[in-house]
Structure formats: structure tokens, C-alpha cells
């Protein structure tokens, strides 16, 4: 039985990849992931051409700020919104969900398979983007400086931490949007609500801050940014009440498991009635 489940999950992964992520339809995810690379690459190219010396510490700080502000809150948020919300709602809008329901696949396996497909795609694309941005940020520095940072400084641990934070951002936002896609006929309303909630998270009381994904992600970021950003943006990157990384990781994994169970229960009861959508 387990062999069959794994084979079915593999088949679902293959289906999703072919349908979405390896087709023209998935182009927007790649564009979204790569567009933050533009200013970093531009900065490196401009500094190299002009021979303008940059401050390593300042650039590290800028990267930390932009990672929180742009990568987590915009790129990964909207990327996961588009990827995971479409896993079921998109099939309903395309009127192709019934093909999955008419296959000898348990609906729970279908949910797991689709979630994994979205997660693998999101993690691969956005983590690659994070790493490329990191490389682009430091590309114009002398290799000696970069190697010192990597080997003698905290370079590797910072890079790994950024990658891990991106992974958990995909996990956290992915499960949240999988759930909204399964529960709501028009998930854009709850998505807008989540966007606002995540946006005002920094201004909320401590107890309410814990009910958000970004709160735990900020605890995983390796550097507390010292932002030079404008006032409202600066507040978005400050972490006034961090939790230990272990708590953040375990919490998000537990949350993801809970969400998948709820989504599976919802999909199990789902009916095909395209006329109302």
C-alpha cells in the first residue's frame, strides 16, 4: 500500500510539474523570484564598473533588510499565494479537478501530493533566488574579502540561515494558502486579510504577533537588520520579541501538519460543482 501511495504521489508531482512549473504558465513564478535580483546585480555591476568601494557591513545590513522586506513579505508571500492557492482552486476554475477525483487515489494522498509539488517548486525557485541575490550582493567585493567572510566570519551560517528561512517561509505560507484555497471559494478575500495582518504584525501586541508566519520567520533571520529604510518599512524589519529558532521551526512544522490534515478533511468532502464557481 505504501509503495502505491509513493508511486501516486510521484505521479501527482509529475503531473503538477508538467502542468504548471515546467510550462509557460509557471513563468510568472520564475519572474517573481528573479526580479529582486535586478537591483543586487545592478549594484554589483555598477560598483565594479565605477570602481566604487562599498562597505561590506553596510551591504550586509542592506541585504538583511531587503531579504525581510522584499523576499519574505513580497516575493515568497505572493509566490506561495499563487502556487498553493491554485493547487485546488485553480483546478476548479480550470474544471479539471474531477480528473483527480476520478482516479483511484485517496483524497488525502492527493492533498499531500499537491502540497509537496507546490512546496518542492516553491522551495527550489525561491531558495535559488535567495542564494543568487546573496551572491549578486557580494560579487563586486574582492574574493579575499568574501572568502574571509565565508570561512572566518559567519558567511556560510548566514547564507544557510537565509536559505532555511526561505524554506520555512515556503512551508508556512504554503500551508496557509493551501488551506485558504481548500476552504474558501474566493480565497482572495482571506489572502488580502492575511497580507494586511502580516503587514501590521510589527505594530500588534506581543500576544497577537505570535499568530503570524512572519513573526517566526524573523526569528530565523541571521542578522537583525539596522535599517536605513523609511519609517514604516523600517518597522517591518525590526524583531522586538524573537523566539528561539527551534521553537519557530517546530511551531511551523506543527502548523503545517495541522493545516494539511484540515485541508485533507476538506478535500475529502469536496464536491464537483463547477457551475457555482
Amino acid at each position: 500500500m505504501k509503495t502505491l501511495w509513493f508511486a501516486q504521489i510521484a505521479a501527482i508531482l509529475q503531473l503538477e510539474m508538467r502542468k504548471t512549473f515546467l510550462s509557460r504558465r509557471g513563468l510568472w513564478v520564475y519572474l517573481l523570484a528573479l526580479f529582486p535580483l535586478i537591483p543586487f546585480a545592478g549594484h554589483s555591476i555598477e560598483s565594479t564598473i565605477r570602481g566604487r568601494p562599498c562597505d561590506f557591513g553596510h551591504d550586509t545590513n542592506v541585504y538583511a533588510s531587503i531579504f525581510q522586506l522584499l523576499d519574505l513579505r513580497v516575493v515568497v508571500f505572493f509566490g506561495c499565494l499563487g502556487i498553493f492557492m491554485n493547487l485546488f482552486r485553480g483546478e476548479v476554475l480550470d474544471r479539471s479537478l474531477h480528473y483527480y477525483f476520478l482516479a483511484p487515489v485517496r483524497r488525502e494522498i492527493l492533498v499531500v501530493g499537491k502540497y509537496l509539488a507546490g512546496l518542492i517548486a516553491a522551495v527550489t525557485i525561491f531558495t535559488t533566488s535567495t542564494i543568487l541575490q546573496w551572491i549578486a550582493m557580494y560579487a563586486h567585493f574582492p574574493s579575499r574579502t568574501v572568502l574571509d567572510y565565508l570561512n572566518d566570519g559567519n558567511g556560510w551560517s548566514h547564507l544557510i540561515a537565509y536559505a532555511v528561512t526561505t524554506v520555512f517561509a515556503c512551508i508556512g505560507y504554503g500551508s496557509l494558502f493551501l488551506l485558504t484555497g481548500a476552504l474558501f471559494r474566493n480565497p482572495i478575500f482571506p489572502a488580502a486579510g492575511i497580507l494586511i495582518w502580516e503587514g501590521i504584525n510589527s505594530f500588534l501586541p506581543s500576544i497577537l504577533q505570535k499568530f503570524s508566519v512572519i513573526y517566526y520567520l524573523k526569528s530565523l533571520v541571521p542578522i537583525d537588520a539596522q535599517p536605513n529604510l523609511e519609517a514604516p518599512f523600517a518597522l517591518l524589519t525590526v524583531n522586538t520579541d524573537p523566539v528561539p529558532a527551534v521553537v519557530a521551526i517546530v511551531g511551523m512544522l506543527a502548523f503545517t501538519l495541522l493545516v494539511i490534515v484540515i485541508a485533507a478533511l476538506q478535500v475529502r468532502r469536496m464536491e464537483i460543482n463547477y457551475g457555482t464557481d
Partner: protein
Amino acid sequence: MSADSQNIVFDNVSKFYGDVLGVNRVTLTIPPGITSLVGPNGSGKTTLMNLMTGLLQPTRGTIGVLGVSPNHPEQLFRQLGYCTQFDSFPRGFTGYQFVYSFLRLYGCTHAEAEEFTWAAIERVKLVEAAHRKIAGYSKGMRQRIKLAQSTCHGPSVLVLDEPLNGLDPLVRAEVIALLRSLAEEGMHIIISSHVLHEVDMISDQVVLLSNGYVIAEGKIRGVRGELDEQPMQVMIRCGKPASLAAKVFEHDSVVEARMHSDGKGLLVKTRDPDKFYLLLNQLALNGIGLESVVPADDDVNSLYEYLIGGEEPAR
């Protein structure tokens, strides 16, 4: 083996979409062979099909498909294939990819899936177009690729929602022949169709639906025989229809006799077909020349007219 494990059974099944009735108190047993669901738009044909395949949950009642509940898709869809009415496909797929990809969900290996895919595509004669995108297919081709996808895993129950929709006459004949051959192998085939003369041609039994209720079910002739309030119509071709009319009117069971427009036929309505046929035998023996005697309303079209045609439109 219990009867339920060989049939498709609906037991007091109702389905409501909020306040709107889908089907109400449907109790049916569908045996092997070709069963047609016939009824006007909105009568509940697709609802019944979606219920038996688990795409809808019944509000009340239970359903069993060869002893398997639709709540167990992992068992049910190994033996059931459903060709739905939805003319939509996963985007960007070719015909081959469409059949192959969903076949892999059955746990088939690549080699098995490829073999079954090509077999199904060959059966519906789409080999040349298999590697073209479905979005570029004609309506008939889309219908055929759906048929291929629903039959590729060799099901023993086939549910087809208007399968002949959009097919040209040649392909229709081929599909009908295919369905007949599958039924002869012992498959359950459930079809919904509006093309009543084709339903007549291919069906072993018929289920008539109207406004969410089952109006009649069974073999076509059996259903017709139970409609006592509708006198049986018999078309008789003979050389002297007027003389024949005078003779048959002597019989109490004959309620109407109408001359055919070409003057060589007589359409008789009788309340007692068996006695009437005996009468015809006697008349023939007494020298009245009869060229042919054919029931004129012993088909689905007439059943539809009698049982459903006089009612208000469903919705």
C-alpha cells in the same frame, strides 16, 4: 457473490443542492449491459452519474457500485471509468500526456502506462493527433480523447455522460459498436443521451428521469408494456386498409384506427395488444392480406413522449 456486488445499487438516494432538488428517493439496481439514462435537461441524469462516481455526496441514502462505496475512490476507480460532460482538460497537455499522466495515478509503471495509453488512443483512432495539444482538437476529437482516458485502465463499469456529443456519424457508429462489444463482455455501461433512436439501438435497459424522480426503469419493451393508459400503436401495411379497419373495429380493445397517408397502411391503437395480435392472426387466416405488422410506439422516443413529454419543463 451477492447481487449487490454484481450490480450498481441506489438505495433511496436523494441529492439536494440547497433548496434545489437534484434527485429524490431514487432506488435503482443497474445490472450488467448498457443502461441509458433518459430525461430532459435538469432531470437528474448527470447528478445520478456524479453520485455514483463520488463527485457528489448524497444528501440521503446509499450507493454501491459492484459492492464498493463511492467514498472509497482507491477501490472504486480501479473498476470504474467516467467520461464526464465537462469539455475541459488540464491546460497545455497533449492527448497522449493527458491519458498517460492520469494513468500513472493508478500506480502503473512507465512501460505499462505507455502501453495502455497507446491502446486506448488507438481504440478511439487518435494516433496521429496524440502528440498535439488538446486545446487544438476539434470537439469530436476532444470527446474521443476523453473516452480514451476513461477506458484506458480497463474498467468493468463505464459511465458516459452524453458520449456521442459532437461526434460525426461515422465515429458515432464506431463508438456504438465499441460500447456494444464492451457490454457483451459483461461490463456495466451507463449512458446518458438525448439521441433517443441511438438509445433505442444500443440500450438493454432504460431509466427515465424527470424532475429528479425516476419515472420508469427496465427493458424498453417491458416499460412500454406497463403503460396501460397509453394504448399500444401498431402499424399494419396491407392492400385493403379500409376493409381491415372495419374488421378491427369490431374488437372492443381497439380504440382508434387511422389510415396512413399513402393509403396502404393502417395505424391502430389498442388497449390489449395480445388479443389484438390474435385477432390479426385470425384475419390473416381468413384471407385479409397483411404485408407487415410493426409496433409503432415501442421505442424510447414514445416512452419519453408518454411519460415525460406531457409534463412542465423541469427548470
